[in-house]
């Protein structure tokens, strides 16, 4: 951490500080409401997603408390269903996606040497839609008849014929979330296409930027399809259409096709940026360049392409024609190839590296191992005949929590630890960070690993009560769940502590860190790269 040679560049980065219109920062709430600054907006996204993580986490605690032992004890089954539904919606759209957008906002302009995002006002709008959208979603829980109770996948006819009175609110909340995502994605694409510093060709971009670039394309391609899906749910429920009703010539399975055409790329929207993050942190803490950069880029693009032709693997039990089942099975298994390339490259990056185990690295290594477990269980689910047994059991729940919690969420933790010094200007408390890691690491496996066994033994998902033979594993799962939930309070304390005080961070906070963001001071000045740096 002693090789700081960037003072000149960082002064250069904001030398015309006082000529610039947007340089004066407003104070108080106005700064945050009216801001056009990518760093402010990134901070807003990150805090919002953390609040949503705790909100959705609290709902998970309700679920685990109810499932602690067999029988109905704490909540009504209908409320249980609302909890699983809103937990899923909040974690997907409120926690993981905004956290990635926040990281994109903070880091992409600094990584490509741009003064800000390409469309700064649109950026602010994209963010401020979200609190309103989730306000509506959460408010619907308190309406007469309760909130959405049909699962985050809102399958028809649960969301149409059998839904409660608040479905319209759910639909319009999803609509405005979608608007937010599409505008955010357009901003990311335009920023990357148009704002790179001179000399930064596409194949010189940090892999982090590449993964967000490809993710943004996935978003603009599938969020409108989600909007179409919820619109059809709305008209089926309230305007007498029969898109998803066989009596009128439609088909409930049509819902699943359209939904998963959105939903499968959506899961890659939540994991590709994670690939970008660990592809940044692992080389930094191994003090080696990323192994196979260009193969990483092509692998990311291949996964994105394949994500559009695998959606029906969520629907093997709907009675598709055999040719369809075979097609979707083989395409799904094909995804293992580019994903394998990635895992191989991360391990090869670590091979003979001078590795040190700071908290971001710990989370990154945990990511590689645990995400791979989630990937392997995905491969099991991809096999059609096997999926007939696993479908809608806790095995599926275990699978997607391994990729979303120990995958996406762990990568977000790695990213936050890695860049906290750049954001706050302080080093975080390494001891507390390691405590957070080990508490999370152990509890998350106690939480999700036994779910595999429960699923294989036949415990269905989305039920508030279960047969007695599942009692022991469920008890352990719940204990792991409570411990994992509490562990996140350590993280909250650590972040607050780091913002308030701590060892002064150097511009290049990590010895092995590479990239333009480490050439500016820590904390990063309010405006960076008003004049773009030259990249060789």
């Amino acid at each position: 951490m002693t090789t700081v040679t960037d003072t000149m560049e960082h002064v250069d980065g904001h030398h015309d500080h006082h000529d610039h219109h947007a340089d004066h920062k407003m104070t108080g709430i106005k700064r945050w409401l009216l801001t056009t600054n990518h760093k402010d907006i990134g901070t807003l996204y990150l805090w919002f997603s953390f609040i949503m993580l705790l909100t959705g986490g609290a709902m998970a605690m309700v679920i685990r408390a109810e499932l602690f032992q067999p029988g109905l004890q704490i909540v009504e089954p209908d409320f249980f269903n609302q909890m699983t539904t809103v937990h899923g919606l909040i974690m997907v759209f409120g926690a993981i996606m905004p956290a990635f957008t926040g990281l994109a906002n903070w880091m992409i302009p600094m990584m490509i040497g741009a003064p800000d995002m390409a469309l700064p006002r649109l950026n602010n709008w994209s963010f401020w839609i979200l609190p309103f959208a989730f306000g509506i979603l959460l408010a619907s829980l308190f309406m007469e008849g309760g909130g959405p109770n049909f699962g985050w996948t809102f399958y028809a006819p649960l969301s149409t014929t059998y839904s409660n009175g608040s479905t319209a609110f759910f639909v319009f909340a999803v609509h405005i979330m979608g608007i937010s995502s599409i505008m955010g994605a357009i901003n990311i694409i335009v920023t990357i296409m148009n704002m790179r510093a001179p000399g930064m060709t596409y194949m010189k971009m940090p892999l982090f930027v590449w993964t967000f670039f490809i993710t943004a394309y996935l978003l603009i391609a599938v969020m409108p399809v989600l909007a179409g899906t919820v619109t059809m749910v709305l008209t089926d429920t309230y305007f007498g259409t029969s898109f998803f009703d066989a009596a009128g010539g439609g088909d409930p399975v049509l819902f699943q096709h359209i939904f998963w055409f959105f939903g499968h790329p959506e899961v890659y929207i939540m994991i590709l940026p994670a690939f970008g993050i660990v592809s940044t942190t692992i080389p930094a803490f191994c003090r080696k360049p990323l192994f196979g950069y260009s193969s990483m880029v092509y692998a990311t693009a291949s996964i994105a392409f394949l994500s559009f032709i695998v959606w029906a693997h969520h629907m093997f039990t709907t009675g598709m024609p055999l040719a369809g089942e075979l097609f979707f099975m083989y395409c799904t298994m094909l995804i293992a190839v580019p994903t394998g390339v990635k895992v191989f490259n991360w391990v090869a990056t670590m091979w003979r590296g001078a590795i040190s185990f700071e908290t971001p690295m710990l989370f990154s290594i945990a990511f590689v191992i645990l995400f791979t477990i989630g990937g392997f269980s995905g491969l099991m689910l991809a096999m059609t005949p096997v999926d007939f047994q696993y479908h809608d059991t806790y095995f599926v729940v275990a699978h997607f929590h391994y990729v979303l919690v120990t995958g996406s969420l762990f990568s977000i933790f790695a990213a936050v630890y890695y860049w906290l010094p750049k954001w706050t200007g302080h080093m975080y408390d390494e001891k507390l960070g390691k405590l957070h890691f080990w508490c999370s690491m152990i509890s998350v496996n106690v939480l999700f690993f036994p779910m595999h066994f429960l699923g294989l033994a036949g415990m269905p998902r989305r039920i508030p009560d279960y047969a007695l033979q599942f009692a022991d594993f469920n008890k352990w799962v719940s204990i792991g769940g409570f411990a994992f939930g509490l562990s996140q309070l350590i993280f909250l304390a650590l972040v607050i502590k780091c913002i308030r005080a701590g060892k002064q961070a150097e511009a290049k906070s990590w010895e092995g860190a590479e990239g333009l963001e480490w050439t500016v001071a820590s904390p990063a000045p309010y405006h960076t790269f008003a004049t773009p740096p030259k990249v060789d």
Partner: protein
Amino acid sequence: MSNKDYETYYVPEQSHWPIVGALALFLIAIGAGSYVANLDTGEGVGGYILLAGIALIVYMMFGWFSNVINESMAGKYSAQMDASFRQGMSWFIFSEVMFFAAFFGALFYARMLSVPWLGGEGNNYETWNVLWPEFQAAWPLIKTPDGSTTTGMGWYGLPLINTILLLTSSVTAHFAHVALENNKRASLKFWLASTILLGTVFLILQVVEYQHAYADLDLTLASGIYGNTFYMLTGFHGMHVTLGTIMLIVMFLRVMKGHFTPENHFAFQATSWYWHFVDVVWVLLFVFVYIL
């Protein structure tokens, strides 16, 4: 790109328009939600909240675009900024394409798969035999499995006239653009006004067609999957034509005020792209909804 292109990239000051826009979308979502949820009773103030939200978003657009226009006229924008706007608009139109793709997907699925399956095709003989043995698979689906009937909309007559109108309007929009690029202002105004006129007539005829469908053909939004796809596709297309026409009118007013130069006319370009996009969607609609 040379270093110089970047130095002028304009990062705007704090703006209150985005938060006004977010509030407007909130009012729209909560108003529309409560209006729709209370549709059967007709109670509640949802409709008014919805209208307030729409009014607020119109106000926001007016204010926000005024800001952008003033900044542009003041020469604050670089070629790079222009590229940002153009790329942003292109990808927005792409996202609109995907929105229509969802409804076209539903149409193709119903025609190619779900309706034939309900008629017993493939291995679905028992489904048909047990559930609706009277049902005959056909398209347009004028008799649904549960027995409600409707009439198919022909492609000749109004739809054909509308196709000709909209295709012509795409040509006139292009002529207007060429006139702008050659700095022929009178010609620009003429072609732009023609485009607006054609778009407006299209919309009026669309309303006439809907009235005819509801009154004479008994073809409604609730007429099974045929009516569903017919109205959702043509309806969303009509909303996009309405928006496109409003955009063209704004462009016309700006042309009258002397805005746009042959080199610098992003807003005009974007409107023109949008107009061509709704035109292409209509051609697909005409083929797949009306003719086939």
